[in-house]
């Protein structure tokens, strides 16, 4: 049977790994290829790498980074940040990404999801959704959480899946950076709404948090600071999850 995936996330800016609280106050913690290789050795199931500063000018740096990471790794790599058109996705895939993640550009132009899925297949197409709690639901926010969109997050997830997203990378904007656990209600609602896999993101600080997200319906759990800080390896977390009864790849 399929194992639950544990996915370290590297936030990258200008070719270096950073991780800030709510994407602000970035601090430098290393080389993406070094960290990626270390995570693979620890037992990471995939690597997500988000270019948090992606601009037109930094495009070549980003592609170069993807090439370097690819050379070091033989597990799947998802790259997001700055994917605005089909050609951006193509360049990332040619550089060595296995999947591309789209966020703001997909909200502004949902047809982008359809085009990328048609060109490269559903298995390459990831839609990242940043969701913020409202009174009775969740709203999609974009541009690093600064801009509300008025879109209902669950409706958007469903539309993204219908348009060809192969999986949804779902970040709780309320929980991200808090280290107090994922938004479990959001994960439950999203996983019930669509058939494609849901990757939980935002708020993880312990194996217990990962366990709760998987119980709530997530198919994979993404975490950054829990691993970057060096307190726990991916292997440590997997052993703890296995003890809790989660099926993980040893």
């Amino acid at each position, binding site marked *: *049977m399929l*194992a639950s995936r544990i996915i370290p996330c590297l936030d990258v800016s200008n070719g270096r790994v950073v991780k800030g609280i709510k994407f602000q106050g970035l601090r430098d913690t290393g080389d993406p290829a070094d960290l990626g290789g270390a995570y693979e050795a620890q037992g990471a199931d995939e690597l997500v790498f988000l270019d948090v500063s992606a601009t037109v000018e930094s495009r070549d740096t980003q592609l170069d980074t993807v090439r370097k990471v690819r050379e070091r790794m033989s597990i799947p790599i998802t790259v997001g940040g700055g994917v605005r058109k089909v050609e951006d996705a193509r360049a990332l895939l040619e550089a060595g990404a*296995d999947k591309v993640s789209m966020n703001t550009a997909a909200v502004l132009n949902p047809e982008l999801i359809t085009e990328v899925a048609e060109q490269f297949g559903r*298995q390459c197409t990831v839609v990242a959704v940043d969701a913020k709690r409202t009174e009775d639901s969740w709203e999609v926010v974009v541009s690093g959480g600064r801009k509300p969109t008025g879109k209902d997050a669950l409706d958007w997830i469903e539309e993204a899946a219908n348009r060809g997203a*192969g999986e949804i990378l779902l970040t709780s904007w309320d929980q991200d950076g808090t280290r107090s656990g994922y938004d479990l209600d959001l994960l439950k609602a999203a996983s019930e709404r669509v058939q494609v*896999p849901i990757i939980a993101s935002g708020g993880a600080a312990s194996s217990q948090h990962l366990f709760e997200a998987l119980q709530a319906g997530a198919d994979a759990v993404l975490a950054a600071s829990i691993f970057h800080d060096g307190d726990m390896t991916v292997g440590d977390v997997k052993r703890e999850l296995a003890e809790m009864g989660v099926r993980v790849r040893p």
Partner: protein
Amino acid sequence: MKRVAICSTGIANIASVQAGFKRTGAESFLTEDADVLASADYVMLPGVGSFNAGVERIDSLGLREALIERIESDKPTMAICLGLQLLSEESEEGAGVGLGVLPQKVERFTDSVRVPQFGWNQVEARGSGYLEAGWAYFANSYCLREVPAEWNPAYATYDDRFVAAIERGRVLACQFHPELSGPWGIALMKRWLEG
């Protein structure tokens, strides 16, 4: 140095396949030339996009006969993901006639599970050829359930049992991505290259 001709049926994760071969110590290059595919020491048929698009691409480039001939004459040939599905006759994914090496129809996973299947699944193999038991990375919505008796299958379980890989002589076809299955997958590619 061993050189692998990668059949250029699209782009997707070709870079990962090439990085994978590099790790085994082999070189790889892309080609869409039927003569090159017919005469190459090693050929890889990667899998990207949909069944129909794959079939159309093979036919528009005139590669059908060269690929079938390789497989039927037991020349070293590997297929990955959609590449395996293209060996069958047809697919529930849409119209289009596959290479027909396998007289099977590719089926979609049932709605009892998440589709696509994304992630690591356990492969059960009998270990008489290249295939060994282990964990492999899958990214597929469609699969084969059975294979003809002359092929040695390895299975995995998702909604139900499905074909994780098959081999016959020097031909190896994987539903999973060996190039993304860590050291286990790279070792499989290496065994195939070494014969």
